């Protein structure tokens, strides 16, 4: 404040409230000269005369940041921000602090946006990227001037146009922020001279310091202006590029953390499972109990209890609980009557009889023949219906007695002169037992049966509570187990399987050596990608041993990564063991409480697990592994089959293969090319809609030939076949040869040798080949596909074991796996888009950076030149 007071930048005010005009002097102030230090400080004297006030000795200093001081500066900046916030909240902040608050507000707003976007995203990595996005944006804002302006300026001009200073009050400010107020006095002569030398200011110039300061001012102003002009373009682009670069690392970090967490969960299951503890079942059951305390045990109540007890489970388990509860509480079908039901009975009767009269009897007459509550009460009391439990036969008797009352009332009305036809009379009486139209209110039978004798008493409640505790405990274990399997295998972003799949697919372009130009040419068309893929595999299959081995090794090493995160052995080993223990334990406890059907829903009936919850849980794991494992193995199999064909062009690996006409051999290879590139499960179901020559040239039995790293077809001509070819579904031998070649021939030695180092991959390939050959590619499948793919028969809601076949549609689909051309096509398109995006914005960013850096060369050159005289 004193500095500004001295520079006269702002008006002064006098004590009387009169405002001083610029230039006005306050010369009438009495001056008191201090001659010597006073032994005692006289506060009144000091306050009465303020002229002793002098500018404070300069305490400002240049802020010199280094990497070593960065943590301290960071902490100090946070402290400054907190102080600014505190001062502003109490209304005492200064201008510098208010400026800080704007930055804080901007960061707070950025965090609010990121947090909201976080809740809209579902995948953990995209959620995290929202915060990375905000962080990178602010980082870019700070980084751009440092990188594009400050660093080149330091190198070229020898000083930082963005340096900061700390004033006497400890406020850090930009040294050159205000072009007309630059505290050059903080720079020493030595520093000024050093900068002057870099700026090539003549050393013999009079007032050299002034000239250096002027040049520095000019350069700093030009840098500040350039910053304003470029930051808007640079920040979003730089931020996007940072995000692009950061995303794989965020993905990797998430994957690492998640897998650690899951592995730890399984390793220390008994302790870790408590994290997944839930009280939903107990809470819901308690809620039902409190609402139905000692009420009749109706079917609805049993249903509500089943819902509450199965709160954490699927409808299948709920059905088991419901069945068990029905056996326990509803099997003894006895009901009680209450005088509170009389009006409801009377209303129901009225509706039933009015419907039966069909308008033939006046409503006031009907009202007279319907027994009222008093009559009904008399009947129930006389017959003792209130005092005993009634079974269904006795309920029938009650209805019969009510019919009797109706009949009696009709007779009474008839006696008083009412004419009513016999058939109408019969209809009215019989309507008591059987409503003739659908009722919109409960029928009489329903009302009489709605108060079972069995009540939801303390004993029943106790049993339900025990069951709730057991179901709750089991739910905790089940949730923990689910967490593990879901995190590993779910078809969702961020799971171990998703990461494994994405990483493998992304690596395929590199493994197959597909270059940018090829990606650009094929990315729009799946067919073109398929062709490219096929040609690439041929290239490797027909290459020398070293190249082929390298290809197989890189493919196998990527596939082998399944052991790193997904860990199929652990899933089918330790995970299955834990699950079996947990389910068996729960089933045993349920049986002890007499809930056998529920136990059966959990673990099966003792003979088979099929149709049970544990079976579904295991299938989730096996299916999840099978699908991804077979898809990747099919690529390996394709390479192996091509290699084998290349090494055995005469088809000697097939029985009588060498004597096959060359055209048939070529057709076999063409179909193999198709199936291993774009084959889908439907191709097997329709017995391959593959056009062939019905009259092949049988005279030529020569071996296949290869040219330019791919097969050279002599006879097979797909274009010609489009007009003259036919689909020969009846050629069983062709089908058998295809299956034999693809899945049952000996694995090529080159392939085998490499896979010896990758036991998991070898196992995966063998399982794939075995399943394809024995289940999908069997002769039965070819001859009678309907029988094999048909849905297994069910009995009492469960699969009949004898009708079960392993080759369910689901199994076939998982075995065949994904179509490789589609998988690769999506991957290449994504690769292209990412590269293109990075290239476009990378170029823009680089151009902007270059332009900004080069502009530095033109800074500091405008303005006065030093004359020879001045230099002299």
């Amino acid at each position, binding site marked *: 404040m004193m500095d500004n007071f001295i520079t006269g930048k702002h008006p002064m005010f006098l004590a009387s409230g009169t405002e001083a005009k610029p230039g006005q002097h306050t010369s009438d102030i009495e001056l008191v000269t201090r001659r010597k230090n006073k032994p005692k400080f006289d506060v009144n004297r000091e306050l009465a005369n303020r002229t002793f006030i002098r500018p404070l000795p300069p305490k400002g200093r240049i802020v010199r940041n280094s990497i070593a001081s960065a943590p301290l500066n960071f902490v100090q900046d946070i402290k400054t921000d907190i102080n600014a916030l505190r001062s502003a909240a109490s209304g005492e902040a200064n201008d510098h602090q208010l400026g800080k608050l704007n930055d804080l507000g901007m960061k707070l707003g950025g965090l609010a946006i990121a947090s909201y976007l976080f809740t809209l995203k579902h995948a953990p990595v995209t959620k995290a990227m929202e915060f990375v996005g905000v962080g990178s944006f602010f980082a870019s804002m700070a980084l751009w001037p440092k990188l594009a302006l400050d660093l080149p300026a330091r190198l070229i001009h020898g000083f930082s146009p963005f340096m900061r200073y700390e004033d006497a009050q400890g406020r850090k400010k930009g040294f050159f922020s205000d*072009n007309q107020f630059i505290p050059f006095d903080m720079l020493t002569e030595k520093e000024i001279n050093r900068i002057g030398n870099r700026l090539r200011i003549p050393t013999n110039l009079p007032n050299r310091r002034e000239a250096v300061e002027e040049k520095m001012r000019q350069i700093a102003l030009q840098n500040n*202006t350039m910053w*304003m002009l470029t930051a*808007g373009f640079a920040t979003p682009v730089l931020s996007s590029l940072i995000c692009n670069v950061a995303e794989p690392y965020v993905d990797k970090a998430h994957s690492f953390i998640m897998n650690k967490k899951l592995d730890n969960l399984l390793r220390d299951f008994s302790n870790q499972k408590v994290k997944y503890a839930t009280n939903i079942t107990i809470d819901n059951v308690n809620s039902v109990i409190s609402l139905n305390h000692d009420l009749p045990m109706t079917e609805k109540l049993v249903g509500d209890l089943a819902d509450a007890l199965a709160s954490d489970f699927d409808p299948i388990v709920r059905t088991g609980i419901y069945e068990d509860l029905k056996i326990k509480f509803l099997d003894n079908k006895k009901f009680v009557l209450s005088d509170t039901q009389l009006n409801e009975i009377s209303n129901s009767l009225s509706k039933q009889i009015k419907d039966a009269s069909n308008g033939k009897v006046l409503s006031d007459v009907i009202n007279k023949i319907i027994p009222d509550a008093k009559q009904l009460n008399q009947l129930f009391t006389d017959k003792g219906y209130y005092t005993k439990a009634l079974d269904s036969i006795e309920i029938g008797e009650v209805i019969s007695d009510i019919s009797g009352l109706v009949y009696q009332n009709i007779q009474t009305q008839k006696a008083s002169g009412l004419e009513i036809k016999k058939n109408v009379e019969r209809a009215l009486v019989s309507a008591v037992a059987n409503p003739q139209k659908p009722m919109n209110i409960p029928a009489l039978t329903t009302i009489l049966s709605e108060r079972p004798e069995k009540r939801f008493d303390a004993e029943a409640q106790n049993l339900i509570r025990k069951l709730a505790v057991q179901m709750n405990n089991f739910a905790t274990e089940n949730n923990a187990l689910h967490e593990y399997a879901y995190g590993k295998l779910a078809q969702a972003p961020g799971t171990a399987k998703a990461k494994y799949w994405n990483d493998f697919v992304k690596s395929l372009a590199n493994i197959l050596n597909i270059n940018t130009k090829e990606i650009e040419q094929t990315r729009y068309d799946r067919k073109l990608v398929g062709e490219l893929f096929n040609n690439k595999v041929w290239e490797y299959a027909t290459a020398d041993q070293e190249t082929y081995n390298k290809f197989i090794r890189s493919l196998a090493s990527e596939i082998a990564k399944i052991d790193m995160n997904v860990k199929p052995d652990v899933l089918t080993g330790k995970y299955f063991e834990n699950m079996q223990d947990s389910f068996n334990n729960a089933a045993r406890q349920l049986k002890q409480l007499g809930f056998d059907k529920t136990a059966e829903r959990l673990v099966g009936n003792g003979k088979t697990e099929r149709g049970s919850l544990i079976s579904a849980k295991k299938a989730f794991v096996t299916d999840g592994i099978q699908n991804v494992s077979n898809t990747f193995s099919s690529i390996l199999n394709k390479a192996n089959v091509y290699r084998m064909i290349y090494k055995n062009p005469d088809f000697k690996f097939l029985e009588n293969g060498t004597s096959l006409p060359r055209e048939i051999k070529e057709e076999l290879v063409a179909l193999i090319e198709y199936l291993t590139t774009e084959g889908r499960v439907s191709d097997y179901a329709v017995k391959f809609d593959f056009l062939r020559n019905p009259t092949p040239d049988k005279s030529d039995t020569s071996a296949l030939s290869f040219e330019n790293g791919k097969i050279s077809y002599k006879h097979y001509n797909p274009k010609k076949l489009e007009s003259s070819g036919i689909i020969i579904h009846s050629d069983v031998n062709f089908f058998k040869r295809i299956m034999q070649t693809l899945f049952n021939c000996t694995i090529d030695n080159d392939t085998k040798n490499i896979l010896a180092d990758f036991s998991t991959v070898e196992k995966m390939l063998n399982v794939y080949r075995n399943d394809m050959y024995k289940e999908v590619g069997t002769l039965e499948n070819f001859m009678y596909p309907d029988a094999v793919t048909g849905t297994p028969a069910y009995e009492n809601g469960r699969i009949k074991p004898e009708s079960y076949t392993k080759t369910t549609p689901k199994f076939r689909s998982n075995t065949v796996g994904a179509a490789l051309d589609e998988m690769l096509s999506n991957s290449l398109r994504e690769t292209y888009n990412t590269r293109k995006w990075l290239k476009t914005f990378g170029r823009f960013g680089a151009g902007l950076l270059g332009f900004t850096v080069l502009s530095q060369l033109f800074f500091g050159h405008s303005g006065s030149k030093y004359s020879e005289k001045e230099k002299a």
Partner: protein
Amino acid sequence: MIQPVKNYSNNIGFTSSNKMIDEEEIKKHPVLIKNNLSNRMAIGWDKFTNAITMYPARGLKGSKNSNFYEFLTMGIIPYLTGSLTLMAVFNTYSTYMPKDKAGAAKFGNKMALGVLFYGLAKSISKEFVTKPVKWFTGIDTEEPYAEMKYKLPEHINDTNITSLEYHKVLESLEFPRWDVKYGDESKGETRNVWFDKIAKKIGLGDNLKDSDQDVKPRVKEITVKTDLAKAFASYLWAGVGVGLALQNTWDKFFEMATFKFWKVKPFYETVVKFGECLWNSCKELYRGPKDETKYLYKNSGKLLVGTAALATVLGVANALISRHKPSKLDSNDVIEKGRKYVVN
């Protein structure tokens, strides 16, 4: 040699005549400008045109006349270019999505709308704080004034040495421009007319001897607190703006929107649809995603709006609650009349 000043209007951007300011008055002293929408827009336009033309030109030349005001005014350039670049970044994405151009375009459009809504919400929401403060205290923390600055001539023939700057009276809390708030006695106003009014409004009472001295600390305090509330609330409301733009309802808008205003009917329908979608997006943001079951996620929109609203209400309340109580001491008790004092 400094030659006579010609005028000032040729160096305030593209504004050919300035109806806000008396041309003679501004040469003598700073002139208060009425804080209304048209004046704010005129000031904004003036500052904008200068920020993209004269100020950068002066800055790149390294002119001595380039000052801190110009540097701060140029802050609008990265704001605008940044917004446009962000829109471009999001929309360029669709070019590389051959299979789902429509989906990518929707995302790009929404993000572009988000950038627009961010700016609008941030600007408009400042009034959520400053207006209530003005209603309750009479203090307009945003009140603008114009001041003519004299520059050094750039060259010997440079007679155009004035520059018009727009500031706010309470822009600097350390150096508020109290001088422009004193009444003009030559026009029959009392000197402390504004301070008397504020003193009465904020409950310091009537007929104060030195209302300016009583009011100034309160005004400072209220302004600091208002600025705090404004800084936080405006960015949170800007977040709400982004939230609104991301709702699904805008997909319908972008399917039919046209900017061809010369085609009256489609353009009118676009405007109507915009209003409809804006309302629907408010409802969508408040209700949360339909299928969402997690409480936090379902209510994240409510939380976003609630946080912004709470920050606004708390900020305004804080601004209205004073720490400074009126002094119980009369000035006679502390000031010796025979002596002159210098105060700041």
